[in-house]
């Protein structure tokens, strides 16, 4: 079974089934490709300007074969897991020339949400196209109505920022696009860092092609993909056949939004069917298909073997069914900014819940602050779920994100903000034989006028436990102003005067097993 959109093998091409890959060569090839991805990630992190990329590592790098199949990925955050191939698919049919890169962020043409800009660079051996390198980075701002481009209340994509349909990334395009964003110089610097990262990958893949010949490289890449597929199938096979169900809700502006999953395991393949979930959200909780797939792939990795290389092969045994135009397979012009960060968490939870797991905090607790002079975006960790393999860790990112925090001292040096408290929210984890982890308390004071936007989940509904474990505490968003305290909505936005404070208490994880 295949996810629609993945190209089928054609007779005679290098992806057609071959003799079993050599057990030594495949391992050496996988290592070389992983090392190329790691190198790209290192160049990107070290040379970018956005705190999002540098301090928080909100970026990923991947290598693709000439057909646009992902061969290897170094993802720092899981939400990029399955969504990079869509970016390469979006440009694969264009005419490619050595050194000419593409960039895009259109969620409906290879992107996820607008702040994630992906740069794709073809790799050539002589005049033969032998693959692509690609990397994705979350930019601090891509224009749109609010600083940080993460509006809490957007209704259409255009409000969320500049939409970049796939196009060639040259100086002219860079100037044109970044000119519509805040801090255009920083944006250009980050894009240059993204180009530098892809160049590092191109050099490494080129060196592999020199050594193995273009055909040898293509065959090696195909072997790595087949290898990942085989390992994934072997693990799915150990899950009892049957149909597994879960239901949950998203905390929308106007009320709860239902989500439904029927997961079917049949032999060595797994199908996630979201039919019956909500139609499109009038707000920004919509997911492009690629984001929904990413969340499913995350769950598959958790449920199978995280050691399997992240490649197209690992996802071949996974089929995702989502009705066109629904919340989890959105279509233009719907707004999507929260789909990537929040709905994706809920989809991952749904997949894990179907298999009886307790759930973690289930949100990234997105906070954006800014005015005309600055933009600051952060996400907050919380409680992880307990499981049959131990208690849930406290104060960590639990699912689709794993970005680092911005150090308080770095934040205070650079932005008109002051941290008031940053502590573990003791007692917030669910009870159980293996209890859930605790959330975080974060209180920040504005030292000048600014706007804030909050995108959070699990404020109304507590993260459930599993196998008899208790739920974690729900999260809490508070505005402290002139000595009084106001409870804010899960998705909220407004204005802060100097001295006003936002206090965010993140959810605890669900416990596992009877305590």
């Amino acid at each position, binding site marked *: 079974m295949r996810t629609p959109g993945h190209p089928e093998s054609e007779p005679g091409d290098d992806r057609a089934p071959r003799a*079993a*890959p050599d*057990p*030594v060569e*495949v*391992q*050496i090839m996988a*290592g*070389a490709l*992983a*090392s190329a991805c*790691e*190198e790209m990630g*290192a*160049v990107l992190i*070290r*040379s970018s*300007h956005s*705190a999002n990329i540098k301090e928080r590592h909100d970026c990923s790098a991947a290598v693709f074969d000439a057909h646009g199949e992902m061969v290897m990925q170094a*993802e720092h955050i*899981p939400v990029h897991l399955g969504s990079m191939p869509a970016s390469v698919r979006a440009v694969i049919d264009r005419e490619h020339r050595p050194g000419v890169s593409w960039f895009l962020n259109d969620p409906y043409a290879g992107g996820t949400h607008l702040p994630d800009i992906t740069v794709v660079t073809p790799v050539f051996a002589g005049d033969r196209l032998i693959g692509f390198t690609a990397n994705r980075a979350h930019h601090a701002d891509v224009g749109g109505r609010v600083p940080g481009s993460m509006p809490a209340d957007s209704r259409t994509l255009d409000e969320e920022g500049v939409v970049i349909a796939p196009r060639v990334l040259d100086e002219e395009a860079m100037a044109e696009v970044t000119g519509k964003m805040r*801090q255009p110089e920083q944006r250009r*610097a980050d894009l240059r*860092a993204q180009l*530098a990262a892809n160049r590092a990958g191109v050099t490494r893949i080129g060196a592999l092609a020199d050594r193995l010949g273009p055909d040898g490289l293509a065959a090696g890449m195909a072997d790595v993909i087949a*290898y*990942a597929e*085989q*390992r994934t199938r*072997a693990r799915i096979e150990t899950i009892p056949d049957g149909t597994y169900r879960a239901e949950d809700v998203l905390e929308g502006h106007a009320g709860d939004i239902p989500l439904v999953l029927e997961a079917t395991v049949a032999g060595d393949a797994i199908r996630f069917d979201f039919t019956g979930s909500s139609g499109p959200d009038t707000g920004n909780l919509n997911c492009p298909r690629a984001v929904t797939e990413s969340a499913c792939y*995350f769950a598959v990795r*958790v449920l199978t*073997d*995280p050691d399997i290389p992240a490649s197209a092969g690992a996802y071949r045994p996974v089929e995702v069914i989502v009705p066109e135009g629904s919340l989890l397979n959105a279509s233009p012009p719907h707004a999507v900014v929260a789909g990537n960060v929040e709905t994706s968490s809920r989809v991952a939870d749904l997949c894990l819940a179907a298999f009886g797991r307790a759930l973690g905090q289930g949100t990234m607790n997105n906070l954006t602050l800014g005015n005309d002079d600055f933009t600051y975006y952060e996400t907050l960790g919380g409680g*992880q*779920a*307990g*499981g049959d393999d131990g*208690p*849930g*860790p*406290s104060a*960590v*990112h*639990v699912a689709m994100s*794993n*970005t*680092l925090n911005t*150090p*308080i*001292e*770095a934040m*205070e*040096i*650079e932005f008109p903000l002051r*941290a008031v408290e*940053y502590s*573990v929210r003791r007692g917030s984890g669910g009870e159980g034989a*293996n209890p859930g982890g605790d959330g*975080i308390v974060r209180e920040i004071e504005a030292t000048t006028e600014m706007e804030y936007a909050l995108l959070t989940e699990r404020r109304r509904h507590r993260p459930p436990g599993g196998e008899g474990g208790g739920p974690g505490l729900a999260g809490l968003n508070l505005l402290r102003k002139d000595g009084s305290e106001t409870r804010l909505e899960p998705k909220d936005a407004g204005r802060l005067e100097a001295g006003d404070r936002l206090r965010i208490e993140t959810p605890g994880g669900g416990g596992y097993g009877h305590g």
Partner: protein
Amino acid sequence: MGELPEAGRGEPEGEAVILGVDVGGTFTDAVLATGGRIFTGKAPSTPSDQSEGVIAAIETVLERAGVGPEEVTHFAHGMTVATNALLESKGARTALIATRGFTDLVEIGRQSRASLYRLRAAHPPPLVPPELRIGVAERCGPDVVLEELSEAEVERVTEEVAALDVESVAICLLHSYRHPDHERRLGAAIDARFGEAHHVSLSHEVVGTFREYERAATTEIDAALSPLLGSYLDRLRVRGSEAGLPEPMIMQSSGGLTDLDNAAGHAALTVLSGPAGGAAAAMLISRLAEEPDLLCFDMGGTSCDVCVVEDGAVHETGSKRIAGRPLALPMVDIDTVGAGGGSIAWRDSGGALRVGPESAGADPGPACYGRGTRPTVTDANLILGRLEPDAPLAGGIRLDGERARRAIAGLADELGIEPDACAEGIVRVANAEMVRALRVVSVQRGLDPRRFTLLAFGGAGPLHATGIADELGIGRILVPRSGGVFSALGLAAANRRRDTVRSVMLAEADLDRATLADLAGDADEVGWDIRYRGQSFELTVTDPEAGRGTAPEPERLRRLFEDLHRERYGYADPGAEIELVTVRCRRTAPGPGFDAGPASDESHRGPATVDLGEATLHLPPGWSARGYRAGLLLVERG
């Protein structure tokens, strides 16, 4: 911190009697060099009190050399006391004092989980548990003090410390790299109240740079380990002085030596003392062989350490995770991969051949040691004829070739390949792991490995040297005839060194000549951590033309930064403003010079195996080796 001794600079080689002692996992090696001759002594390591093994090894070497303890002019020591304590999370009962509202910094860390998909995987717990953390009412900002620390609060905190019954105290307040006064006052009050009974570590002294989590975690490690390390070094001092030896210098994580008192008071400085000794050996070899650029790999039984020597100096980093805990201090930049002689080869669920990270260790050891049954890298080398089957190992073990063959054949069967191909594959996969690590330390920094000479160390290093060189496109390899000797010699010959690191956060407009000169002080070498305004990582710029106590012009500093930025990342941003974030001052006094003896006149041509005593060099066809300077073998193609 102690003053640096001026001794050693230009000292006549013949008069120095240098003694180095390196504590390893199994053996403690002592080496004594004097007048062109080198003597070695060995004793079993004594984990419960490493100083016993140290003194035993020294007694052996002094006797062999016929040298009295009082004749020793330079005595240096590398140890694993702090490393082991950290690996086992064993420290003194320690309190943490932090700005109110931020006492959980050490627990939250950077809020990332330990493993992306293993959801229960956890970071090591902080050395200070929540009940030993004290919040203090005070607050500094990046520019000004926002809330003064009152005397009453100092008194209250001191009382709270008294009630906790701790041996040691870590103090880390926000923005103390800029405003150290509050930490100092709290530290002084605790000193005044408890005196010698409590160790105190102040974050601005231990680390001195911004980014509170890394500073707090390092300070916590310093506080928790210093009482332990202090009592070990006291025992060593007493035993050494009873034996008539001079006081030893201690190897720091930076690869430089410090005096015993400074090491005893700041355990965080010596967490990587052991591996830094290996790096010091690499620098010594670089100097003796006149090979400025070396890629080094030290492959032992369970793992392989890799590092880069460029221009005679080992690469350093200002921050690294050790055993899952961050240490924000200058240290040799060594990466470790789980590829060693004992690494177990296995077939994964996708049918691929994998090597490590699981290791057969010393017990049961590789199959050919006679107890284990699972195939290891050593077994593969044996059946490929790269190890002499009759060579006796340490402890009198003889290699059991039949056992190795059975183990490899079993795996080959599972994989559906021939045993020889399987053995060959095990070596290649292990090599690929090490190559990847060597790439991480070189290519990612913009260095081309092909222009380096490979230095192969450790019990298994020389076996894999040519295979790794082939992969990296390197044509020149150095192999020490006795790696253990070099580790101990490297210690004794290392520079004395003291680092002070401080975050200053100066905008480009504030950088003038006088300010820079003031920051450089009388340092021998200054690293300037600079970034474009808005970037959140810095590049460390050094001015190759700056001598002791001189600082570059601001314009030159900018140019050096942009050159480096371009070299590392392929672009510079001439329109962007820069800022000076941190200044790293290093004061050094060179170690003693000595004569490591003449080159041997041996030569070997592949295919051959060369017995090096502690290791075996494998020379495939197309490679040859000859005796080189200072007891080294030079291995080249041809």
